[in-house]
């Protein structure tokens, strides 16, 4: 595969913003957004999510059990 070598320096964020037609204030907002994004750690796995169906079912079971208990009293 042919490849080309890039020798130009990396454009700065300010230069990129200027070339993209983004105002300095908007560029600052975007940089802040980038700071927020890159600080986050995305992990696979973690807390197991229980489906709503199971929650509903358990709520229903609790409800019926409560009714049964109250009728026995």
């Amino acid at each position, binding site marked *: 595969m042919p490849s080309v*070598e890039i020798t130009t320096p990396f454009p700065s964020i300010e230069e990129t913003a200027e070339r993209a037609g983004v105002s300095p204030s908007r560029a600052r907002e975007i940089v802040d957004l980038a700071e927020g994004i890159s600080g986050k750690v995305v992990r696979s796995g973690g807390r197991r999510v229980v489906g709503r169906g199971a929650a509903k079912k358990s709520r229903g079971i609790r409800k019926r059990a409560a009714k049964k208990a109250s009728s026995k009293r």
Partner: protein
Amino acid sequence: MRQKKLPLRGKEVGATDVDVFLNIPYDRRFVDLFLAYTAGLTSLGLFPRATLEIAGGERRLDRTLDLIQRCRYSLHDLSRVEVDASPAATPRFNMPFELGLAVAWQRAEPRRHTWFVFEAKTRRIERSLSDLSGTDVYIHHGRPSGIFSELTNAFVRSQRQPSVNQMKLVYKGLREGLPKLMRNAGTKSAFKARVFDDLRVLARALSERHMTLR
């Protein structure tokens, strides 16, 4: 013949040796790959350009040609060769047409332009565009990681060459930030001029951060 330069969005600052014309389909299914190209090119210190920057009014063809001529490189993704599903079913001619413009421009000015062809499937281009037989085609398999890998094959930096993993981090950041950029622009599409402007700045900021963390 001297070509008259037509105005585009943004400012033309400094050399255009970093400018890369991105010739891709603008459809929802392509958003991830669009973000991957933006992340990968920006990580390489390049500046993606696209016809998204072209406002209405002037003749679109003139502006497209003008944009290609301003760019040192062009990437042509010919992976969407299917007929558009929305009625009436129509094949897309814009991407091969713009590739043709870039090829002609490179023939006229070999030192000022270099074009690359990207595809999702190996050997498909031999059927879809047999005129390109013998041309090296970069195969990305329709995946962002494939795009990063092929971009690092196409472009080499002697200093600060980004790794595929760094490109992935920038890409993940773009995916995370895209909804906010679209909300700010009041649109539901990633293929809008303002979103593209902001994405390039976001990609640059993210790449700066991930490169310094190296």
